């Protein structure tokens, strides 16, 4: 017994059984074995070519040619090594560092890509793969930022889809009418905010279950935009649904960084706004008075109330802000991606964003990473389809969703949200 006391934190290794979860290790193990079987056991002949250069790069990089079998072996070995490290860390009772799943995932992705495209005459354009991932992630990230703010202040936001859709619709109409992109952006924010107002008013003033309001708002906005699209926009699309479009702006030095430079820094204003948004929300939430109060209200509204913070007001305005941010995500769809609104143009992005919020553990940076992971998996599916993969399209289309489930079940596990999220606050 005395020996057991010697260490405060972790010397009791192995003597009394496991205390940390082996779940991560299991996931690593299963994936490693699966990868080894596929990449080595069912190895395909030939090699895969990865393009590192996007057409407008200044420096030219030769494409990377990876032979399938050796790459499969190396990828499997790296995956096995990661699994080994994970086992060791669990036995040593240490925290799993963030780089481990990243290295692991990279090895698997490279292995998978090489396997799937081996022998294909097509090159896998890495910058294109990444740029597409980002493009698919942008509305998700805006939606997730809105979700994080809203839930952090204690209002469960199931209405992200509605906020995105309202933003997309309004941005298209207002920008078409005014011929001004800025007006479109502002209108999208206002529209997202209006959806939020309803959420906030019903949830905060009338104490209606926040999930009800969120679910219903999605239906309401979808119905309204469909209705207005058919009856108002389609007949007058030249005036009401032909907005100008944001053009990418190249940032001089940064965009010259190989591979990721053009991906990140040859983007439209909305995407730059998104970078700013992620940084600002992160700093704001954790470093400023605004964030402190916001989080206090979401964690313990009574405590906030007793120090003179207006719970209702804080919730109301921050939920509105969340709507405005999500609205920008909608504007991306109709002002940057494609210059027009079409029926249900969000196609469920809001729900994926909601998943990213939870997956990202209510942290803006992690939620952004979750959205990027989703975007990457989606675009990986696209690219695999393009370079010709042996998998039926329907199964490729499932890829991002399956990846998300694996990630959530395997790596994130139980996530604790803001303590008071979803609970209406009633003062005595």
């Amino acid at each position: 017994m005395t020996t057991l006391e010697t260490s405060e934190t972790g010397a009791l290794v192995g003597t009394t059984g496991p205390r940390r979860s082996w779940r991560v290790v299991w996931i690593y193990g299963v994936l490693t074995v699966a990868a080894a079987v596929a990449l080595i056991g069912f190895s395909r002949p030939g090699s895969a070519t990865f393009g590192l250069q996007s057409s407008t790069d200044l420096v030219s990089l030769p494409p990377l040619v990876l032979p399938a079998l050796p790459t499969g072996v190396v990828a499997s070995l790296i995956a096995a090594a990661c699994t080994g490290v994970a086992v060791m860390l669990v036995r040593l009772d240490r925290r799993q560092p963030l780089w481990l799943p990243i290295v692991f995932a990279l090895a698997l992705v490279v292995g998978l890509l090489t396997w799937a495209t081996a022998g294909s005459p097509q090159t896998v354009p890495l910058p294109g793969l990444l740029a597409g991932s980002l493009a698919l992630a942008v509305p998700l990230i805006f939606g997730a930022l809105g979700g994080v703010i809203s839930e952090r202040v204690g209002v469960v936001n199931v209405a992200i889809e509605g906020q995105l859709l309202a933003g997309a619709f309004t941005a298209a109409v207002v920008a078409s009418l005014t011929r001004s992109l800025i007006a479109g952006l502002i209108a999208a924010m206002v529209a997202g905010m209006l959806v939020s107002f309803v959420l906030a008013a019903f949830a905060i003033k009338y104490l209606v279950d926040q999930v009800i309001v969120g679910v219903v708002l999605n239906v309401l906005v979808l119905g309204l935009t469909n209705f207005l699209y058919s009856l108002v926009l389609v007949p007058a699309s030249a005036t009401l649904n032909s907005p100008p479009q944001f053009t990418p702006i190249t940032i001089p030095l940064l965009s010259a960084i190989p591979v990721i430079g053009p991906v990140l820094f040859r983007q439209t204003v909305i995407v730059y706004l998104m970078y700013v948004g992620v940084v600002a929300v992160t700093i704001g939430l954790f470093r400023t008075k605004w964030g402190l109060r916001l989080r206090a209200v979401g964690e313990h509204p009574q405590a906030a109330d007793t120090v003179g913070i207006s719970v209702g007001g804080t919730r109301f305005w921050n939920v509105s802000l969340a709507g405005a941010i999500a609205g920008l995500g909608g504007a991306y769809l109709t002002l940057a991606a494609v210059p027009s609104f079409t029926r249900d143009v969000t196609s469920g992005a809001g729900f994926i964003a909601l998943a990213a919020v939870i997956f990202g553990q209510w942290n803006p940076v992690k939620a952004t990473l979750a959205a990027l992971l989703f975007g990457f998996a989606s675009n990986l599916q696209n690219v695999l389809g393009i370079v010709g993969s042996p998998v039926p399209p329907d199964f490729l289309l499932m890829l991002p969703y399956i990846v998300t489930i694996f990630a959530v079940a395997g790596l994130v596990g139980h996530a604790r949200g803001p303590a008071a999220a979803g609970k209406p606050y009633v003062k005595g």
Partner: protein
Amino acid sequence: MKLELRGITKRFGALTANDHIDLVVEPGEIHCLLGENGAGKSTLMNVLYGLYRPDEGEILLDDEVQRFSGPGDAMRAGIGMVHQHFMLVPVFTVAENVMLGHESTKAGGRLDLDAARATVREISDRFGFDVDPDARIEDLPVGIQQRVEIIKALSRDAGVLVLDEPTAVLTPQETDELIGIMKQLRDGGTAIVFISHKLREVREVADRITVVRLGKVVGQALPTASSTELASLMVGRAVELTVDKAPAAPGADALVIEGVHVYDGNGVPVVNGVDLTVRAGEILAIAGVQGNGQTELTEAIFGLQAEVTGRILLHGEELTGRTPRQVLDAGAGFVPEDRQHDGLVPEFTIAENLMLDRSDGEPFVRRGALRLKRLAAFAEERLKRFDIRAQGIGTPVGRLSGGNQQKVVLARELSRDLRLLVAAQPTRGLDVGSIEFVHQQIVATRDAGVPVVVVSTELDEVVALADRIAVMHRGRVVGVVPADTPRDVLGLMMAGEAPQAVAA
């Protein structure tokens, strides 16, 4: 600062929680409010603090009438309050909690955490607290959390300080320290309103005492009044303050705990090799400062801890590795420490809560179906026998007062054929009348030949109930001593000194 309340009336629907209450607290005075559960003390303080708007009456500070539209106004006017239920954000650090609501900022609205840390340190030093400004609240023991609440109130230079049952969760030492601080503040000219159910400390600290019953002031008393006098003034009848119990007639060893370790999520041992034996028909009280492994030990008995090693035997039957269900089925009854969190489902009715741990088979379930009539009859009987004050068995438990909630838990646990009873903090936050009742029930259980474990941080309770006392410190049993061990010895043991060393 002088505080005066004039004719404060506060109604909740048909109920008048405060009925024309007058109260004057002079600067440099500690004024105690006494009253049974639900008398209206907290309500009055919430009115004072701007949380509730009074229906009638006015609040005066230094003879000026105040208009509070919210706690913000009250704080600005110089009122500080330590709430009955801590108002701290668990995931924030001490400094963040202290600065919340009056944050100092640097350029760009960024928090000036250094300033907040300095404030925390400055107040800590002034009163000899040992509080790390960067510790997260949820990692701190309640005693320290209590200090954070006080620091929070003081950081705003409160001229009137309200302490609503601040000692309910403190150890004797911590209570003594708090009393010292209150006296320090009083001597500095602060007007203090102090609410407590513990007559001993009220008499020790009060300059004046006001007793409230049924929302009305029923009398003033001086600290020189005896506990018995105060108690009967509060409740309106004579109260037995000491537990009337015959000497124990212990039988065979019933609960045997051998070399038990409990590890937390990080693999740190929180119970560290505990050996204990409880005999049938005896009460073993486990004393100790909150957070020294008592909670985990009781949870380990009931299969509620994930990582337990060692052996726990009940009448020779192995309990380790069993599920909570199996332990309950083995005849163990459990009064958990946090009744609202672990003991009750607040949204459920009294009746439903009374069958909560017998949701699987007889008597309330047959072939998968609830037997509601039988449950109703049972609940009615329990309601009467345990004197649970409620509209009926269909009342949601969340609407009951704390004392009545506790009675529901007891009524449930004591209605089975017990072979073991474990009661953790059975009277936390209860008034003297309720305490009397709960203690009687526990003693009656012992007298029926059941081995009883009572975990309490309350020395009064430990001394009143125990046949033997085990003191825990840092996950270990410091020693097992007879019930008549002097308080100061117990106090030292709670601080970790072995009994021989103490005796020597």
